[in-house]
């Protein structure tokens, strides 16, 4: 894990350093004088050899210092801490949306195999996986905000400030981001439920005369959820990628929007910090999924989950 984070940091640092653009010029803007530029370059250590700059950067991060934004000179860490809860909130609601859709659709699909509801469920899963999130987002805004006016089109209010409004603003983006996951989960749930339903012990349960619903919920679902949880956990990581587009479309001030703006405006310290944070989260979540998996299914030893 440490090794990976080290390589991750080297990759980020090198990528950002080959990004075209002069940080000093960016900081001083359209009307900067050459003298000021030279002075600032020196002060920022831009004339040092790259490995020195890298060591400085890593050293500072280990001390909790992520540097300052080139755009507004605000401390990057502070900005990051402002953005993280926003993205987490979006992630949470998207996850809720995904589960709310995937559980019923997946179960229905698997238990009514070959019938209309299975057909519709499979179709939903297929289209959900193929829907480009930016298109879905635009359609949702157009339909539900512009035409029907059920929801506000975009924006963000913290939960603590105005609960109802915050939720109302979160619904469309959560659907946009959650649909893809819902589709993945539905697919996964259906096939793993089918597997379990055909296994011996379920047949035994049937033979004992238990009601179908009790069988499904009591036995099959519990077992079928194991792989579903894995997919869900691993997909959480992919959420950061998805949040980039969703946050841009819906004007949600989270990490995704921050990193896009930082890349487009060449705000190097912010890019570095955001990408490092995202990669860090992915590494940590994968680790947690491994642990969760081994708790749910003790037969599997840590580290063997997805090896197969």
């Amino acid at each position, binding site marked *: 894990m440490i090794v990976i984070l080290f390589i991750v940091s080297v990759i980020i640092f090198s990528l950002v350093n080959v990004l075209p653009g002069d940080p000093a010029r960016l900081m001083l803007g*359209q009307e900067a004088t050459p003298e000021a530029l030279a002075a600032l370059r020196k002060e920022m250590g831009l004339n040092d050899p790259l490995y020195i700059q890298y060591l400085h950067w890593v050293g500072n991060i280990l001390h909790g210092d992520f540097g300052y934004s080139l755009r507004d000179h605000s401390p990057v860490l502070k900005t990051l801490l402002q953005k993280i809860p926003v993205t987490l909130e979006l992630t949470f609601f998207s996850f809720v949306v995904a589960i709310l859709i995937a559980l019923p659709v997946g179960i229905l699909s698997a238990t009514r195999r070959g019938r209309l509801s299975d057909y519709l469920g499979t179709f939903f899963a297929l289209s959900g996986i193929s829907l480009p999130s930016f298109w879905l987002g635009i359609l949702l805004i157009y339909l539900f905000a512009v035409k029907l006016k059920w929801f506000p089109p975009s924006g963000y209010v913290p939960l603590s400030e105005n609960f109802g409004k915050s939720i109302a603003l979160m619904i469309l983006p959560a659907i946009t981001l959650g649909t893809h996951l819902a589709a993945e989960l539905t697919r996964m749930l259906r096939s793993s439920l089918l597997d379990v339903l055909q296994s011996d012990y379920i047949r035994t349960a049937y033979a004992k005369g238990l009601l179908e619903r009790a069988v499904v919920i009591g036995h099959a679902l519990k077992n079928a959820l194991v792989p579903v949880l894995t997919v869900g956990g691993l997909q959480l990581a992919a959420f950061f990628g998805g949040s980039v587009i969703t946050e841009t479309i819906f004007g949600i001030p989270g990490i995704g929007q921050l990193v896009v703006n930082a890349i487009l405006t060449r705000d190097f310290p912010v890019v570095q910090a955001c990408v490092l944070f995202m990669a860090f989260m992915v590494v940590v979540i994968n680790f947690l999924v491994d642990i969760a998996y081994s708790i749910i299914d003790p037969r599997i030893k840590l580290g063997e989950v997805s090896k197969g």
Partner: protein
Amino acid sequence: MKTLRKAILPFVVIALFAFLAACGGQSSSNGGSSSDAKSGQSASTRTDKSKLVIGLDADPPQLDPAMSTAAVDRQVYQSIYNTLVDIDKNLNYVPELATSWKISDDGKTYTFNLRKNVLFQDGTPFNAEAVKFNFERMLDPKLGSPRLSEINLIDKITVVDDYTIRIHLKQPYAPFLSVLSDRAGMMVSPTAVKKEGKDFANHPVGTGPYKFVKHVKQGDLVVERFDKYWGNKPKIKTIVYKPFPDGTTRLTNLISGDVDIVNTIDYKDIKRANSAANLKVSSTESLGFQGIQLNTKVKPFDNKKVRQAVNIALDRNAIAKVVFFNGVVPATSPFPETSWAHPSDLQVPKADVAKAKQLLKESGLSNVSFTLKISPSPQEKQLAQMIQSMLQQVGFKVKIEMVEFGTLLEQTAEGDYQAARVGWSGRTDPDGNAYAWFTTNGTLNYMKYSNPEVDKLLQEARTSLDQEKRKALYDRVSKILWDDAPYIFLYYPKDYKAMKNDVEGFVHVPDIMIRTENLQFK
């Protein structure tokens, strides 16, 4: 075969759905106003009159006026800071932190009488020392302030008494008051600067009607009424600035959301805003110019005939109509119609493809191609594609390259371009629209344009205090610039602001700022 048909069905259903959505939009684009209006009525019963929300087109990146380079910053400054002098609707200079001023006959010494009993929001008293501190801070090359080029003609600053300050210039500089009505004239608290240092931009302190509370990047910027403000006490307690980079989203939030006024609406949305029953729209011509910057030191634009061909080939009226829905004024010079320096005899010509072809032929070049760099907004893309298509008829091959705006400025500054879509927000005094742009080695002259006659005329115009004489000089400059064509003037932007019907007290000054001090709800 039956099952195959079943399998194709979902594709057809989706296609149908999308098609209906598309067509539904068409029919409602005519009737869209009625649905906009409906929601407007429900929103007009305002219960909370203590909070006003301003929608901005971008997140203000810099809250220190000495360091600011983005136009949007200045909107927020209207709440936090005061300037030494202000301008009114007709571009006359009016008192703000300076109550009166005197300019010596040689135009080199400015004496300001300062307002008494003014406090910065941190309690620091405002006085002549504070003014001196501010100018010296901006003049210090170590700070690297973009203001430096605006005020580097200052020779020295003398504190006459607590409330009188005298500024000596190295040479007469007619636009000086205009400069002081903008960011260079905004006074920040010396105590706060000394305390916060670099972090001042995150804890800005001025003398304005509202004090800074918090700023979430790409999110809310909140200011609150400053109770010890020297002027009229603002009626509204809290002002929230919210960024909405997308124009449609911004307007939709104004019509059916909690936004009360927006700093600009897209040209394509003017009609929609006008027809929304709960909104009123105000417009004014602004101070700037927009067009194409040509690098006169590289091929093919080192050839004057080529530049002239571009200049005459573009149909400015079509551009104004298609891209801007006639919300802008076609341009021929750096001075818009609001400016007294506007050359009214320099008419917008009809696009002349034949003449352009002739000029291109005379240039001796064939297969002329170049890259036009633009910043990546839909409107810029649309404009660039029109330019591309119009020039293609003449025989130019234009490649469009999208570059982020900051990078675009950087590349043009380094001469790494052939043509670039960069404009100017404009200044009150015509000097601010011409000197830095068109004199040899001017700080914004990225065209590397050099014409000794223009240099002489512009130098003369900035040192004279006689407006009639200056007007004649600027007319001459406009004519030469049209002929030399280092910059293709396309249009003068107009400013459109929309606000809820019950927002009162807004005065539309051509500097397009929302002066929050007098805003209130009906």
